[in-house]
């Protein structure tokens, strides 16, 4: 930027830290060519009628019109909204509460932390299968409760089109809250002891201290957590495939699955690209204003 203002005696700005710059060339290339290039390529081809193989025959917004006419896409978007909102709220709330409880200097904290974090070590496919079995009415929770004597007990979310997405949400929360808890716990540990002492001296109840003092101080941790959860939400795919394959009918379809199915099973790349471009736009709508507030806007907040 300020290259011409530097004194002639200093070496060229571009050559400073040359080793580090050379070392980062592969990553820069990857980012530009693969991420940015791939994204642009996808968006361009979403305006074509590519079928099995990409073809540059432009058809305008046809793919998008068809996309927003397709009942399956609409169901997918709706499911993602429900899943997204609830998983965001619940994993933040449950994760924070667990972390706050864990922060009370309890005994065996390590053990509890390991147990809570354990599900996160499993892949979504395994989580999906485990919960598919647990929620199966013939040998899961329902049959256990029935065998205990409650003959009419019914709990089969995966086979009920109206609530199937909540069945998937349960599995996602089971897997994801452990990580949120750990992040939150790390944030809580970073709070200075003196703040707690000051609050106690002032006679502020503990819950008030948490909400009005501690949480605002943990802003950075919350934002990190939010980004991790949100990226997990948009790309949810394997969990659905393992638990329901989108069923019953199309009741638990999600956008990522629509993209895959139309690109590869229906051999209609254009349609799949249009759907993935819509996903990109959704992410951009959420990320851009936030990034602007966080990194731009002139004033620096820490």
């Amino acid at each position, binding site marked *: 930027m300020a290259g011409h203002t530097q004194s002639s005696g200093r070496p060229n700005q571009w050559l400073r830290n040359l080793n580090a710059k050379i070392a980062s060339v592969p990553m820069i290339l990857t980012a530009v060519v693969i991420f940015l290039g791939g994204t642009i390529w996808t968006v361009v081809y979403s305006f074509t009628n590519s079928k099995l193989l990409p073809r540059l025959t432009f058809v305008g917004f046809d793919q998008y019109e068809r996309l927003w006419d397709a009942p399956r896409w609409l169901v997918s978007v709706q499911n993602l909204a429900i899943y997204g909102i609830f998983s965001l709220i619940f994993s933040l709330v449950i994760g924070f509460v667990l972390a706050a409880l864990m922060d009370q200097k309890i005994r065996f904290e390590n053990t509890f932390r390991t147990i809570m974090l354990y599900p996160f070590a499993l892949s979504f496919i395994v989580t999906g299968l485990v919960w598919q079995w647990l929620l199966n009415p013939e040998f899961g929770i329902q049959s256990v409760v029935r065998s205990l004597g409650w003959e009419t007990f019914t709990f089969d979310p995966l086979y009920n089109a109206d609530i199937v997405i909540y069945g998937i949400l349960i599995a996602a929360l089971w897997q994801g809250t452990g990580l949120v808890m750990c992040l939150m716990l790390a944030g809580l540990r970073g709070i200075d002891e003196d703040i707690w002492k000051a609050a106690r001296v002032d006679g502020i109840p503990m819950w008030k201290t948490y909400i009005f003092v501690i949480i605002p101080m943990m802003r950075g941790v919350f934002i990190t957590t939010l980004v991790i959860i949100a990226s997990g939400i948009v790309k949810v795919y394997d969990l659905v495939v393992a638990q329901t394959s989108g069923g019953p009918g*199309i009741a638990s379809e999600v956008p990522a699955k629509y993209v895959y199915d*139309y690109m590869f*099973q229906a*051999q209609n790349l254009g349609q799949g690209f249009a759907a993935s471009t819509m996903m990109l736009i959704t992410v951009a709508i959420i990320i851009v204003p936030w990034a602007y507030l966080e990194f731009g806007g002139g004033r620096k907040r820490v």
Partner: protein
Amino acid sequence: MKLRSFAAMLATAVALPLGAASAADLEVTHWWTSGGEAAAVAELAKAFDATGNHWVDGAIAGSGGTARPIMISRITGGDPMGATQFNHGRQAEELVQAGLMRDLTDVATREKWKDIVKPASLLDSCTIDGKIYCAPVNIHSWQWLWLSNAAFKTAGVDVPKNWDEFVAAAPALEKAGIVPLAVGGQPWQAAGAFDVLMVAIAGKDTFQKVFGDKDEDVAAGPEIAKVFKAADDARRMSKGTNVQDWNQATNMVITGKAGGQIMGDWAQGEFALAGQKAGTDYTCLPGLGVNEIISTGGDAFYFPLLKDEEKSKAQEALASTLLDPKTQVAFNLKKGSLPVRGDVDLAAANDCMKKGLDILAKGNVIQGTDQLLSADSQKQKEDLFSEFFANPSITPEDAQKRFADIIANAE
């Protein structure tokens, strides 16, 4: 025995990298993984190994919907296998047009496929711009209703002879705690069942007009409305199936937990594997007992263009092995499908297969939907019918409107 075959496998695994054998190893990918299917594919491997080459099995589990994307991305991604299964028809159309598949016209003329393959439409589906690109191996027809004799006995009603009797018997089955009609959760099953109902109820000409000519007026018309009415019955009868895979649904029929299933003749392999006998343990009704017409879709092997000369030669050997009369008989008996050549003797065929051969000889055949519709339209149809079958709140009228839209936009 097990140990020895394991040892043999190890031995081949060691021998493979040496590549000393003059004949080539050919990787063949397919999605035949259920019990009956695996037994059938072993016959193909045996016949091919007998030519001195080596069959490297590349089975991909999870039915065609899962397997095809993997196969296609291997071919388009520059890592082609030696040969691969597709349903002949339009699934590989673009791969051929892009010049990725091998032209088999030489082999076909040498072995006179034009004369031996019956019905001729099978070879037509392999032909693009006058060149032959695939070797058909079997004929599969969708139009079968499989009924469990035991289930009807439990319910105290006679085994139905056609679709209407079956619908009438449904309440009795339900009272006995039996699901009348098993329809698995995989989307293609619901879509396939609808196609079968269409042939049976609306007839051959309507089927051809809708899927062949893509006539949207017919698709929105009264004939198809009747079909949707029947699909509505089927939807009611399938409530409580709760399984995903087709063979699990077939298993419900085998064990008498379900009254019947609309499924292609590949279901027969499962009945055979379970030791059941046609006529006494189960009953098959071609064309749902209404309209005895079968479709002639099926499986074919396509051969990607390879640079390796040895492997190309092995491809030719495989192509001619697949249509060899002996292989045809051995394979199709295990698979429960019909042979692609009219001149082989299927004396060992069971009742159901004989019924199928009979219909085939009479020429009461239609093309399969895989041959008539693009994969894209098929997928849209699957979305519609899997939703329709799972969600009772969609009226048959609404579904028909959406169906007509799909046909109007089909290529």
